[in-house]
């Protein structure tokens, strides 16, 4: 019973990690159609931000909360730079964007290696995030996982609110639904693109901060995440936040069940194969966005 409970929570928390790393992509890939292979390196930048911030601020708890907005800005700025330098020239060639950003990810990884060294670096976690949170009965939940879950939900809430309630969100949606009509209506589409990219990349930075609590912080950390993140977005349905949320948690739970029943390797293979098969059945993903534009 205890095991069933902790294992279910494990599934949810794997889902929360997936959601955090995929959330930014669901904006840049989902809304804009840009395949950014350097997304993983933006996550890495977020993680290294924690490391750098902790050099200046010693308190682990304070530094974590300082690092959150800083990482958002750092990764966001990197995203804007990337968009301005390269991606805006490639909107007509989505596949080439994939290759170009892969080149960027190589360069960023090597930069990290040269700046911070090839070995992983360590960051301190506040003591209240390293233990477990006791629950009634004999149950307990890992505090770091709970924190990531809350962070993921907060991020999705903030993103959904931005998209629904703010003028910027309305503009992004307008551009996604019909770029030409948006343009004639006076929406500065290039600026909207850049802002979308800023938010999407910034969310990767936030994910990086969260990952320092559970995983390694090193130059290669991004490469391990990128395929999973893309699969969540693709299976969730391009352009739908709701799809990404449901898919992330579903994949997390599946992973946890398979890991428990078989081995970690087999679970990974099964989940990957499962997503591929699922896309055969529903190539448009869980939710489809219907737009009125032609062509």
């Amino acid at each position: 019973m205890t095991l069933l409970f902790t294992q279910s929570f494990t599934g949810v928390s794997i889902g929360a990690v997936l959601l955090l790393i995929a959330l930014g992509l669901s904006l840049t890939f989902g809304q804009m159609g840009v395949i950014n292979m350097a997304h993983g390196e933006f996550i890495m930048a977020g993680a290294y931000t924690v490391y750098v911030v902790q050099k200046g601020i010693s308190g682990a708890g304070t530094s974590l909360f300082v690092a959150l907005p800083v990482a958002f800005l750092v990764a966001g700025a990197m995203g804007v730079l990337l968009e301005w330098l390269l991606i805006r020239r490639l909107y007509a060639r989505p596949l080439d964007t994939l290759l170009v950003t892969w080149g960027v990810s190589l360069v960023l990884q090597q930069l990290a290696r040269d700046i911070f060294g090839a070995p992983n670096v360590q960051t301190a976690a506040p003591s209240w995030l390293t233990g477990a949170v006791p629950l009634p009965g004999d149950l307990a939940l890992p505090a770091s996982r709970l924190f990531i879950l809350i962070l993921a939900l907060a991020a999705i809430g903030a993103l959904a609110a931005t998209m629904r309630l703010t003028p910027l969100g309305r503009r992004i949606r307008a551009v996604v639904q019909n770029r030409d009509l948006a343009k004639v209506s006076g929406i500065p589409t290039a600026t909207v693109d850049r802002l979308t990219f800023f938010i999407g990349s910034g969310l990767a930075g936030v994910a990086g901060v969260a990952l320092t609590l559970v995983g390694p912080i090193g130059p290669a950390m991004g490469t391990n995440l990128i395929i999973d993140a893309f699969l969540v977005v693709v299976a969730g349905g391009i352009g739908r936040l709701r799809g990404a949320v449901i898919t992330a948690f579903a994949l997390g739970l599946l992973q946890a069940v398979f890991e428990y029943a078989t081995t970690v390797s087999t679970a990974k293979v099964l989940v990957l194969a499962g997503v591929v098969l699922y896309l055969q059945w529903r190539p448009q993903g869980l939710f489809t966005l219907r737009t009125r534009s032609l062509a």
Partner: protein
Amino acid sequence: MNISPRLRAPAGFAVAAALLFLAAPLVLSDFRLGLLAKYLCWAIVALGIGLAWGRGGMLTLGQGLFFGLGGYAMAMHLKLADAGDGKLPDFMTLYGSGTELPWWWEPFRSPVFALAMVLVVPMAVAAVIGLAVFRRRVRGAYFAILSQALCAAFAIWLVGQQTSTGGTNGLTDIQGFFGYDLGDPKNQRMVYFIIAAVLLALMIGVRQLYVSRYGELLVAVRDSEERVRFLGYDPALVKLGAYVLAAGMAGIAGALFVPAVGIMSPALIGVVPSIEFLIGAAIGGRASLPGVVLGAVAVAWARSSLSEQFPSGWTYVQGLIFIVAVAFLPGGLASLKKYVVRRPASVETPAQPARKPAAEEVPA
């Protein structure tokens, strides 16, 4: 440039043949020739990528899968041949149960079966994937990401089955090649000549394909799939053909890689090597036949020689040439020749589709 256009291709092939069969063996040491043999294997993969990606517009990010299938088929046979009749390959006695050969290894004792599988397995897998994917009109980014996911899954699976696949080590220490001792430099040369001959033959075959009706249809599908559909063709079948052929070429390359290097391992199959297969094609010019081949060889050569001097510098160079070549020179180096020789705009520069909202890449 006073060669008539009709003679240009045959002259090119003659030069290539002279370089591969006469110049290289005379000029290069045994060691460098062995490296060139390896580079030519990448070139064979790139040839297939040129067909599927350059001409067909399918971003084949998962060629490692087919390279691995072909390579493992060959390596399994050579490993069994090394072990001798009725015996197990060395790694199985070390890490496996040590007594039984897995049933799916047994048929690979036959050289004919193994050679057939080098082609059949990758092409059959590609046919199944392709049929499923292209019929559902999955294309663009989806196709690329699906290929990568499959590649990753295959590599993880191989690593997990250590007792029957050698795990991360892969199949190493391959000593014989159909009865010939690979330790002998003469036989290494023979392997080189076989690889060079296969590459040349495939180049000629692919060139024939490019100038055929099918080649034109493939380019038409790349540039406007809908219009081809309205003309009464089935674009899915057209794409499937190129995809399966590319997979077959990757399989052949994997199989030839095994005697050339003596190793087949999951490290050659995963996501990263699969993307690296594309670099040469992207730089040389994805739609140009000499472009992909020369690009692949040049990049492999640069990697070997640059990484000797600047190990970390190579990563920057690799990343930067990739960025520059793809972003600013989509036709690759081959497209530069139009500044040198005036030629009419041809199929070699991919047409750019107008920007569409991402949501429509896969019609519901």
